[in-house]
């Protein structure tokens, strides 16, 4: 009996000393700022910052190798919090969201051929330059929908990608995947856009689309401060937020109805399939919460 107690006690003592020494010797220095930043980040692992996950971005920020304002999904609140943790100043930047610069769905744009293959815009675009006659319009096969981590893009019943402005975080994944570069990031405050991406001359645009920008320049004549004309394609000058409001004055002038105000029920809600639910993600548990448990 006594031998057993003493024996076990001795083993316990040796193990305790060994573990104690090992804990000191092999301790990993975790920057506590990294843990805090990881807790603040959205946890969607969208990749918009250029890092494979929120956690790797957090460690890069705490190591000082990444700027603090890369998380576009988290918005300004996250950037401010990271700045506070890192004791840095916030450089203000406006939030951006994605806009699909095309209105040419199957009722308005002419098809080149009937496509039957793989349901992927990049694959379709390799076949004779895509099934649409327009070389720069939305193909509507949903490669952008597949990459969106926030379920913020849908394809309408007539085959056109549309961004949900509440859900979009401006991470830019759809911009990168689109083979036709028809999705752009624009300031979230801008609600008026020229929805066309074709740099072709007016006569050519008319052959394949009823709602394409023909580069007539009437919008620029009407509101010179808000519109820019670049190679037969008008777009809003987003650099002056205050001036962009004036762009509304040109909406009625545009002969092809390319200029659209998103606040005026665009697109027609009846055309939209209901957006898929945002998948549940396990909430991140902070160290404080762990301690409480």
């Amino acid at each position, binding site marked *: 009996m006594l031998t057993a107690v003493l024996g076990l006690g001795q083993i316990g003592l040796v193990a305790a000393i060994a573990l104690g020494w090992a804990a000191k010797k092999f301790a990993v220095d975790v920057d506590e700022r990294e843990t805090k930043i990881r807790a603040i980040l959205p946890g969607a692992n969208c990749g918009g910052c250029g890092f494979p996950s929120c956690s790797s971005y957090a460690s890069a920020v705490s190591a000082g190798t990444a700027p603090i304002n890369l998380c576009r999904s988290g918005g300004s609140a996250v950037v401010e919090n990271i700045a506070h943790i890192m004791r840095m100043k916030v450089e203000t930047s406006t939030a951006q969201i994605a806009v699909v610069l095309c209105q040419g769905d199957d009722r308005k744009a002419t098809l*080149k051929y009937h496509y039957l293959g793989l349901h992927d815009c*990049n694959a379709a675009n390799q076949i004779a330059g895509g099934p649409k006659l327009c070389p720069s319009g939305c193909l509507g096969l949903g490669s952008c929908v597949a990459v969106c981590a926030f379920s913020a893009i849908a394809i309408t019943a007539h085959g056109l990608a549309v961004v949900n402005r509440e859900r979009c975080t401006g991470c830019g994944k759809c911009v990168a995947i689109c083979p036709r570069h028809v999705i752009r990031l624009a300031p979230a405050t801008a609600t008026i856009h020229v929805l066309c991406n074709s740099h072709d001359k007016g006569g050519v645009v008319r052959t394949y689309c009823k709602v394409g920008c023909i580069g007539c320049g009437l919008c620029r004549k009407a509101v010179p401060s808000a519109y820019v004309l670049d190679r037969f394609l008008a777009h809003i000058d987003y650099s002056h937020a205050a001036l962009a409001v004036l762009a509304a004055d040109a909406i009625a002038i545009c002969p092809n109805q390319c200029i659209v105000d998103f606040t005026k029920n665009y697109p027609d809600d009846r055309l939209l399939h209901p957006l898929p639910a945002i998948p549940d993600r396990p909430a991140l548990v902070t160290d404080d919460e762990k301690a409480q448990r």
Partner: protein
Amino acid sequence: MTYKSFTGGIPLVDSKLVDSKLATRGAAVEPCPIPDQLIIPMSQHIGVPAQPIVTVGDLVLKGQTIAQAGAFISVPIHATTSGRVIAVEPRLHSLGKDLLAVVIEADGEDRWDPDLTELKSAQWTPDTLRQRIREAGIVGMGGACFPTHVKLAPADNKPIETLLINGSECEPFLTADHRLMLEQAEKVVDGIDILRQALAVKQVIVGIEANKKDAIARMKQLVVGRDIAVKILAVKYPQGAEQVLVDALLERQVPSGGLPMDLGVVIHNVATAAAVSDAVRFGHPLIERVVTVSGPGITTAKNLLVRIGTPMQKLVDFCDGPRGEISKIIMGGVMTGQSQISLEAPVIYGTLALLLFGANDLPQQDAGPCIRCGRCVAVCPLHLLPATIADYAMLGRFDMAQAYHVMDCMECGCCTYLCPAFRPLVQTLRYAKAGILAQQGRS
């Protein structure tokens, strides 16, 4: 009698598709009338597009060079009839895009350029023959259009020992090479002789599929005493693909990522051999080819001798127009051809055939999920795993697709043809290949 063959592929014996050749196999080649306007694209071959050297208003003669080769892997392009250049501008190409082309208005006289002359056999050396073949703009006539002179210029460390001549014509509907071997066998055999001298090889084997009995008999008759072997191949698709032909005739495997040249083997098509004979004997460049016009959607199926640059509409008109409403136009064979968006595009070097189908001839089915039956694996003549590669491609894992040798895929279409879930496997593999090439271009 057992025929030479390979593992995998689709045996077309007892298949509906074998009968597809019946429509035109007995039809003698007819010359297609020269249209008023010929549209000659500058990119008809694999490699760098040719550079036009004529301008609008120039008068050209048949066979005159109108575009210079853009690089070593490129060929010059010639006027296919005499007339006046009326435009040098992008025109609809069979790839479905507008690409640079020279448009010639025919003067109806069809006069040869008098400077084109024979290369006397006293002057034949591998160098002069290669030079002549390059000047004549000859490319592989089997569909891929790889410049022939490049295949006649082996690297110093890879001596060529065997010349294989491909007369298999394994694709359904096509009978152009079959008719050529029957009607112009002398020219084909003469071309084979010239190619053999250009390569300085001993062993020459002609492979012909067993469904062309008359062509085999004719060729066997002509090669007597010439040290050329004629071997009979099993009727199986894709018997005519380079790697497969090496496997069937020589029982050797082309290494992954390699070419038959790595085994000391060079392969040329029978139609290429005929074109080589024309170029050397008469100085005539490549300006025409035999095209099979067939399919359930054509009124009279024919084999036509067509000038390069003839709009496909002219071929259909000459074959008494379409039968019923047309829902699909394929330039080339049904397995490897290119769907067309219109009949305006011109015939190019790679136009093996023009096939028309009505709406009911092509049952269409939506793609379903893979059921893991493994038929694509069993049928792949290159022993790849198409379904696995396709899965990786759709996940964006091009690195893994490459590790599974997607770059070796020759896009024969056997996997897609047999897939019971109707998955577009070839398109997915092509998508992966394009993705890998884009990644390599970036890095």
